[in-house]
């Protein structure tokens, strides 16, 4: 099995783990981490496709590589926005629960008073 295949299978499993964590973990921050795990697994599959497309004395196809670099920066900005949303939720509601039936607790945000 080539290196590309080994890493491809590994990233498929990492993406599956990320999806599981995204569904099962109740904390929003843990969901964000799991989502990043899922995304990075998909990115590595891009890398596998790039590696297999090695030609013209290049070690890997540059087009998927460029797409992944763009994707990583976008994924980071989405993560930052999601984290900011969770922190704001915590400030306003005093908890980060996504459970609609949870009892509301007192807000800690002095600015909304």
């Amino acid at each position, binding site marked *: 099995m080539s*290196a590309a*295949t*080994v*890493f491809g*299978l*590994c*990233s*498929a*499993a*990492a*993406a*599956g*783990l990320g*999806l*599981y*964590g995204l*569904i*099962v*973990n*109740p*904390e929003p*921050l843990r969901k*964000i*981490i*799991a989502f990043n*795990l899922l995304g*990075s697994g998909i990115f590595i*599959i891009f*890398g*596998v*496709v*790039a590696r*297999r*497309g*090695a*030609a*013209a004395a*290049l*070690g890997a*196809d*540059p*087009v998927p*590589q*460029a*797409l992944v*670099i763009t994707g*990583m*920066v976008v994924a980071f*900005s989405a*993560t*930052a*926005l999601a*984290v*900011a*949303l*969770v922190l704001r939720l*915590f400030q306003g509601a005093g908890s*980060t*629960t996504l459970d609609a039936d949870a009892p509301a607790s007192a807000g800690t945000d002095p*600015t909304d008073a």
Partner: protein
Amino acid sequence: MTIAAALETVLAALILAIAIWTIAARETFAAVAGFVVYGLLLALVWVRLEAVDVALTEAAIGGGLSGVLLLGAAARLRATETRAVMERPDKILRLGAAILSATVAAGLAAGVLLLTDPAPTLASAAATNAAATGLGNPVTNVLMAFRATDTLLEKVVLLLALVGVWSLASDRLWGGFPGPRHQADPLGALAFLARLLPPVGIVVGIYILWAGANHPGGAFQAGAILAAMWLLVMMAGLTDVPPVSSRRLRLVLIAGPGVFLVVGLGGLCFGTAFLAYPVASAKPLILGIEAAMTLTIAVTLGLLVAGAPERRDGQ
């Protein structure tokens, strides 16, 4: 099995173990620590996949900046963790999620195993047309010339994300300072490193930008390194984040996409198409865009980590 193949298998197994740890760890702090290690190991995978440009990006963004962002959030949300334990979904949902995730993973694995042979590739097209820009790094060629529109739009996405983060400020705090004011022992290790590392980091960042024309590197990687240096100085309390109403700050934020757009429109007016560089001056134009972009990326990434405005004054 050669030594290289054995090491690759060990690396893959290690990554899987860390991924499981990241999902299963009880404390969010432990999960974030796992995620940082995961990001750094992935950078090794990218090197093994002959994608050094991506490896640099992964190490700087996946391992470094994401780690800082998530660790900061985990510290502030620590109080919510005990309660979340009670909200764990029941067995049936967990089993369903496990089956769904296993199916998706199996599908992806099958996709990897069933990839067509010989693989489709644009590598030869990229190599043939490299002379048009005068740059030796094929990835920079794709990012800045062949698929430059992607990169331009991605800059806009970064800016939009920052506008989204800033918009989370309450009315009273709009235009204020992002995040809490960091304090650190002025004689401690953090303050020491924040004085020692930035001069080196800034030189490395500029080198990576300059070398990115012909070797692995480029605007994203350089910007991420500069952002990390800025964050280090801010977290050591040596300087404060500028208020989001600062005009100078906003000018830096639009410099990258602005220069990119002007060059693109220049191609439309004087050349053949949007973002068509004249062959004679392609390299200086691309390097000029990259220089402006590096500054914008560094400031945007730093501000994304700093978060929404939370203070009216500098205290």
